[in-house]
């Protein structure tokens, strides 16, 4: 069959795996964006920088304190999440009553400042992070590096856990209700401002977690989030702003589409996601899973 279409199976499955890994990062990052947007009504342009901070936190924890990857996987998102909490309390909460544009300017500006500071301190060439599970499996039709397989599984677990937390738990019910009508939720006795801070901390922590997972695959560098986050915004637009399941499905799906494009028509692989975005916006402006209000 593979000979028929003239593609060797190694190339096809190799690119599919790569697509799946990229998709895993798209999904985790767009999920955090969706959660934050739903609750804060702010499009968090700092997300890429916070993803980078997660990778850096893991790298610094290893380099300075000799803390291993598996501990950083928990510790780094908490550290960066707390940074997010401070950011929300100090800056973001002051702009909720203003137009979306101010949220955009503030979070975009913050991203530039944060990335600039990291670049100034550590340069932009990037540093390697050792692979915590080297080796791999020969599946016959392709070679699967163990760590990459782990990343895809971990991302799936993280996405589904987030979905479960939001759609099936009490805290998630507060989040969904407060997204719809914060005034009423507050009048029921729930401290909505604290809920908003917590949501932002969680969303930022999710970005940092993705950053830690990316560290052993990519170089840890100040600008590692900038290019990625551009694609992630396209994913969010395609999936529908604020939709949780939409972010997960679209993230993985677009990663795969990108991978397949690399096999069949490599020159288009960088643009295919934006072509899909344009098509979706023409046909369903609210996104595949979005609801028009």
């Amino acid at each position: 069959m593979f000979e028929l279409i003239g593609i060797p199976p190694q190339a096809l499955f190799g690119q599919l795996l790569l697509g799946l890994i990229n998709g895993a990062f798209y999904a985790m990052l767009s999920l955090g964006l969706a959660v934050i947007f739903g609750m804060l009504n702010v499009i968090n342009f700092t997300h890429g920088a916070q993803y980078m901070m997660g990778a850096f936190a893991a790298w610094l924890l290893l380099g300075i304190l000799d803390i291993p990857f598996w501990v950083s996987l928990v510790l780094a998102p908490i550290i960066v999440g707390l940074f997010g909490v401070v950011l929300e309390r100090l800056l973001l909460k002051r702009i909720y009553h203003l137009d979306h544009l101010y949220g955009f300017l503030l979070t975009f500006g913050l991203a530039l400042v944060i990335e600039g500071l990291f670049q100034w301190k550590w340069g932009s060439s990037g540093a390697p992070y050792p692979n915590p599970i080297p080796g791999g499996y020969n599946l016959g039709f392709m070679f699967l590096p163990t760590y990459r397989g782990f990343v895809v599984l971990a991302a799936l677990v993280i996405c589904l856990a987030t979905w479960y937390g939001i759609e099936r738990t009490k805290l998630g019910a507060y989040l969904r209700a407060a997204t719809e009508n914060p005034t009423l939720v507050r009048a029921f006795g729930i401290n909505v401002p604290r809920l908003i801070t917590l949501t932002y901390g969680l969303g930022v922590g999710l970005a940092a977690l993705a950053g830690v997972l990316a560290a052993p695959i990519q170089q840890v560098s100040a600008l590692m989030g900038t290019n990625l986050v551009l694609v992630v915004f396209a994913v969010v637009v395609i999936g529908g702003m604020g939709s949780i399941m939409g972010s997960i499905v679209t993230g993985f799906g677009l990663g795969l589409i990108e991978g397949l494009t690399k096999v069949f028509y490599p020159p288009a692989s960088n643009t295919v996601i934006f072509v899909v975005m344009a098509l979706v916006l023409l046909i369903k402006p609210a996104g595949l899973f979005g609801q028009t209000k």
Partner: protein
Amino acid sequence: MAETLLKVQGLQAWYGESHILHGVGFEIGRGELVTLLGRNGAGKTTTLKSVMGIVEKRTGSVAFEGKETVGQPSDAIARLGLAYCPEERGIFSSLNVEENLLLPPMVRPGGMSLSEIYQLFPNLQERRRSQGTKLSGGEQQMLAIGRILRTGANLLLLDEPTEGLAPVIVQRIGEIIRQLKGRGFTILLVEQNFHFAAAVADRHYIMEDGHVVDIMTAGDVKQNIGKLQAYLGV
């Protein structure tokens, strides 16, 4: 009158620049059912929202069990034991019926249990997995009332619970409100439907242009029906 539960004095409130309440005063005793009557725009809903702290720009005094609430945010006021059922009902579409019922947190001991609430509103139990906003208008109203009964709040603020409902449902809501009074809830009811209000309330405060202009007890209503109709413009 029984021991005072809520005492409102000189309450003024603003929406942005517009001054809506100009010194509202009234009292509710524990276990009483009191209504605010008046035409559209008299300030009834704003009064409820100001008591609840949803309208933040307010002055004067609102004391609940002797504790001053003006200046506190609405979540703190709710935790004192006040619960609010908004005119637009405020059912959450991203929550199912049971999630809607369970959303408001317990603020005091002594609230009704979920099974007691389902006994009062059997329809809600049948449809507990449905999306909240897929219910009929009457069922949504029952859900909006039902969900504030669990929390242990002893003062219920009900904003026009009969609005837009069929007469048979209005009657059912009237029965429920009487039952709740029987259970010891104190109720502040805002109504346009004066026949409904007259049938359930102990006392009526009549509002005009952001003031309370008259008070009638349930017994006074018959003699003063002409005056009341003039106030309400019916």
